[in-house]
């Protein structure tokens, strides 16, 4: 699969969805594609989800084999009509979770196949940040930090640095005793702690909190 390509949900995707079961991260990937078809390259989505190149390849292959996504071939008119920005900013549809069930073709009409100028005018400002009331998926945040810091043991050490920045009292109050870096999957519902973890993650990665939230949005907006 080509990571620099823009994959679309297939016409049959809506019909297939109820029959399929995937791990969480694979649904997140599909959901990101379905929310903004024709906009993001696979590589950009992989970065948003904190996935390695190999991990992204595997998931794309699975989704494609199940008939959920495909690489569309366009006529020149369609190409001109699409608002494709392979390396541009992350753009998300306005629709909330209910959009999952919306027919794929309907989404295309409102987002992808509008004339470029009109499409730009209609798309709301980037709002890929996690919902304020959504619990923090700590495992996803840690994967993001690891991947962005270079993966492997360097990535793991970046996670360690993130926790070194947290006050001991905070860690004790949260009841942290041990975190296995390859398997940690925790939900952090304490808003203050979640914000602090995000803040420290952004410090370690040298990103603003806003930039981190943009990257993290794809992970937690489900």
């Amino acid at each position, binding site marked *: 699969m080509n990571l620099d390509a823009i994959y679309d949900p297939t016409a049959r995707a809506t019909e297939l969805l109820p029959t399929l079961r995937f791990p969480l991260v694979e649904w997140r990937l599909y959901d990101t594609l379905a929310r903004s078809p024709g906009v993001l390259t696979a590589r950009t989505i992989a970065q948003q989800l904190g996935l390695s190149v190999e991990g992204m390849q595997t998931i794309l292959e699975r989704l494609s084999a199940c008939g959920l996504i495909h690489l569309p071939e366009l006529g020149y008119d369609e190409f001109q009509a699409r608002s494709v920005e392979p390396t541009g900013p992350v753009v998300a549809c306005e629709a909330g979770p209910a959009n999952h069930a919306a027919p794929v073709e309907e989404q295309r009409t409102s987002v992808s196949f509008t004339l470029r100028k009109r499409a730009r005018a209609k798309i709301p400002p980037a709002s890929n940040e996690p919902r304020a009331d959504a619990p923090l998926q700590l495992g996803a945040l840690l994967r993001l930090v690891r991947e962005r810091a270079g993966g492997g043991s360097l990535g793991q050490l970046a996670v*360690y640095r993130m926790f070194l920045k947290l006050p001991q009292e905070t860690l*004790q109050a949260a009841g942290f005793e041990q975190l296995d870096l390859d398997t940690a999957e925790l939900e952090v519902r304490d808003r203050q702690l979640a914000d602090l973890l995000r803040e420290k993650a952004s410090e370690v990665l040298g990103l603003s909190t806003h930039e981190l939230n943009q990257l993290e949005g794809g992970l937690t907006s489900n």
Partner: protein
Amino acid sequence: MNQHDMHVFLEVGVNFFEKTTGEKATFGNAALQFGKSDLLDYSGVIRVSGSSEGAVCLTVPCAMLDELLRATGESETTERYERDLVGEAASIIASNARKHFGPRFAIAPPETFGIDEALQLSLPFARFVLPIQWRGYRANLILALSESASTAPSPFSSAPCLT
């Protein structure tokens, strides 16, 4: 200390096994531990000070030390030899770290602890624990650091603080 600096300790730690025995060691799954650490039979501890404070600790079970001694042609596997070997490993880690960091961090001469003496050891709260696997045995390399000098406890204190 950023992750690249920290990585120096990991590289030197894992390379010790290959350089000493000719057989590569591998990393296991790393974990963060908070307020407690699984120390094994013998530990070589290196104090670090500078913009990060704390200690780097290589902790090894007796059986692994005995196997290492045999692999290096040593027939004696007494307590003294086991302790000397973990001290030597820690010295190599410390020496390489000094070369890498120069004056940026002060790397103290290592000290060795048996499991019974480890109660004297007080480490900063958040620790990075990386298993090193070699010939089916497992040692742990522990980074126990603190970012701010003002909040870092001394790695050695009279208060028992192992757990």
